[in-house]
């Protein structure tokens, strides 16, 4: 029964994150754009209305006449019609003579700041008009008549309503399309994220409804590449988990199967010893009990070693190894003296490195099992060696005996191979370790009989020599 796993959302959803980023982007961009367009709008408004001011001031300056030694102004209506282009703005103007006397206009019209060096062109400046901010221009007209000589200055000013209105309008015209584009971007990103998230939702649904023991791969078709990476990694993980499960199951069933017989035998021997009527019988039974127990210990060692090898095959990283060193290690450990005292093991290695990519522990276990099989079931002389044949590297063990029964050749590599009649310390478990190692590192087992005896090899793809 599939158990529905409650999903506790940790942190914000991707949608929220992206939306938040987009909104922040839009806000910052919007504020920047608004500020920029406000500045440029204000600049444009200032320039165009400054031109009006200047036009009006020039009109007025043009209308100044000298009559009887006095400057007279015939104020032109056209100047005020120009100013009325800013229909809601108040107006101030003044025409002043050389000695600052007011010729006409409003006496409270401000004068241009004088601290600046005298410039001949029009001078624009900001000032107030009855407490309201206003913009002014002052132009100077010079007279050199017989009866009048000097400067007449014309000041014209206007409040800022039309400028402000134009600034706002220009800003809105610039910002409005951007705002619409921003909303469109927001909608587009929501839709895109939603459609991109749909495969993830499907995966989440699949995982949530999946049987916890179902470790079959998830489909990777029609998912975005980024998601496929995750899926494939997950599939690889599940496959590994599946193999580990299998290995565990195998270990348990093997152990059960293999331990049942020796343990039963031990119990029988122990009972026999208990029931023995004389010392001779008891000694014989105890002696068998000891051998059985020792043999059980060996079996347990092998089973654990096999489990370890299979576990490592999936988890240990592959390293560059020299098979000659593996063979040397096996001989150096002198384990064979415990198995078959008095038997000498020959080491046959060449000058050249025989390199493979594998796990040292697994290879050593495999080689040791091959060697102990030869020592137990073969006939001396026993030799171990490593060599390279084209693209393949071999770790081999040779003895003078007949070797494995030929009917088993085709079934090399099967997990469990002990004829019911076999003894506990048979070659079955040892070979299955070798088979597991061969499979894990893309290799195989080869058995060959000749007149000299029997040679069994673990054949692995050779590693390319390091440059």
């Amino acid at each position, binding site marked *: 029964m599939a158990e529905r796993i409650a999903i506790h959302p940790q942190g914000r959803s991707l949608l929220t994150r992206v939306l938040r980023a987009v909104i922040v982007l839009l806000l910052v961009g919007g504020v920047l754009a608004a500020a920029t367009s406000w500045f440029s709008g204000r600049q444009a408004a200032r320039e165009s209305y400054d031109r009006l001011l200047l036009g009006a001031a020039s009109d007025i300056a043009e209308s100044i006449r000298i009559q009887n030694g006095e400057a007279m102004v*015939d*104020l032109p209506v056209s100047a*005020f019609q120009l100013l009325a282009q800013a*229909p*809601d703005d*108040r*107006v101030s103007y003044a025409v002043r003579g050389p000695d600052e006397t007011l010729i*006409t206009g409003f*006496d409270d019209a401000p004068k241009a700041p004088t601290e600046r060096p005298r410039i001949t062109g029009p001078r624009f400046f900001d000032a107030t008009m009855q407490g309201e901010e206003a913009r002014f221009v002052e132009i100077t007209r010079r007279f050199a008549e017989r009866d009048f000589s000097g400067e007449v200055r014309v000041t014209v000013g206007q409040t800022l309503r039309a400028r402000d209105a134009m600034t706002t309008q220009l800003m809105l015209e610039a910002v409005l399309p951007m705002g619409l584009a921003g909303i469109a971007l927001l909608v587009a990103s929501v839709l895109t994220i939603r459609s991109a998230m749909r495969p993830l939702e499907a995966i989440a649904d699949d995982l949530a409804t999946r049987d916890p023991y179902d470790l079959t791969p998830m489909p990777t078709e029609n998912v975005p590449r980024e998601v496929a990476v995750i899926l494939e990694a997950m599939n690889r993980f599940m496959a590994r988990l599946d193999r580990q499960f299998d290995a565990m199951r195998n270990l348990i069933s093997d152990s059960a199967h293999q331990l049942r017989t020796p343990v039963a035998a031990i119990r029988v021997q122990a009972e026999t010893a208990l029931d023995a009527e004389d010392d001779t019988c008891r000694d014989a039974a105890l002696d068998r009990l000891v051998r059985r127990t020792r043999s059980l210990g060996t079996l347990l060692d092998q089973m654990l070693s096999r489990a370890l090898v299979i576990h490592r095959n999936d988890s240990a990283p592959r390293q560059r190894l020299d098979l000659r060193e593996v063979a040397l290690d096996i001989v150096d450990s002198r384990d064979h003296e415990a198995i078959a005292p008095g038997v000498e093991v020959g080491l046959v290695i060449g000058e050249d490195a025989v390199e493979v990519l594998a796990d040292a522990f697994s290879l050593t276990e495999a080689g040791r099992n091959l060697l102990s099989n030869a020592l137990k079931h073969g006939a001396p002389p026993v030799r171990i060696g490593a060599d390279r044949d084209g693209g393949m590297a071999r770790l081999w063990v040779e003895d003078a005996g007949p070797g494995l029964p030929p009917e088993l050749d085709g079934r090399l590599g099967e997990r469990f191979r002990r004829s019911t009649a076999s003894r506990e310390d048979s070659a079955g478990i040892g070979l299955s370790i070798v088979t597991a190692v061969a499979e894990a590192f893309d290799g195989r087992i080869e058995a060959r009989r000749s007149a000299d005896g029997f040679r069994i090899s673990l054949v692995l793809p050779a590693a390319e020599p390091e440059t």
Partner: protein
Amino acid sequence: MIRLLALLLTVATGFTLAPPVSAQEDRARIGNGNTVLELRSTTDVAIIRPALEAFVEQNPQLSIEYEQWGSNALYADSLAACAGEEPSADAVFSSAVHQMVALVNGACARDYQSEATLNLPSARRWRNQLWGVTEEPAVIIYNSALLAEENVPRTRFALLDLMRNTPLSLAGRIATYDIESSGLGYLFAYNDSLEATTFGAMLEGFARTQAVATCCSAEIIGAVSEGRFLLAYNVLGSYVANAAPADVGVILPEDYTLFLTRGYMIPRQARQPQAAGRLLDFLLSTQGQTILRRAGLIYAQDPEETALLPSARRAIALAPPLLVALDRSKSAQFRTLWRTAFAAIALP
């Protein structure tokens, strides 16, 4: 500063003394409400009274303290009130709209907005501070008993011809407003000078016929009716309609007719601005406009009735160009020109 400006302008408009404190010509109390709206105006009480009575009838909590002023005195008073030297009115209603534009330009007015004010055409509204409430033509009136029908001048050109051809029979018998004492007369004369080149010829004709520049609509209309004047130029049509005098014919000059819209403004220091706004909305409402039309303050728009081509209508727009009329240099030159034409002519 504004005080100084007021003084300068007062001097410029011909007064040698500051206006007397009680310069109002007439006053009236309309309604019994507790809230008193003080309205200073150049309009004759008798003409505006029906409109104000209808207003206080609708707003019984209000009463109107109505003061009738001469336009120049009202302008000086408003400037002083703007400078905080005199108690301010709650609303000012003047026919001398150039002075009203100057007041608004001097930041003496208060903003007000309503549906009625926003519906006004742009020539009748400035800055949401000045509104044109009426529409009154500047007309030529003549004594219909004394002036033969074929001699009645329908245009300024006809009037010029008349003055040229029969200067002797017209001598001293043509009248117009004295621009020195009447703000309205100045405004009409000034607009004439902008409108057409006939203005110089008109002044010349007035000089040749020894025309009379005098004050006050009522006197001019009465004198034409009695036959002391044969003809009067640039008389405000609404006063003629109200006086309904005997033997007076009215001409809307067909070359162009100036239309004046009386300006309504709420001063910055008004104590009852809401009431002033309400009165404005009433005057602009259908009912208010109907009453004003009946009082002659809004001239009939129907071309068949007025026999005036729409293109001949010249509205005096409430806008900054009117400021030029008050420019001291400009008005000094204009008055010099006028004075030369009317030199040494006194009331008969």
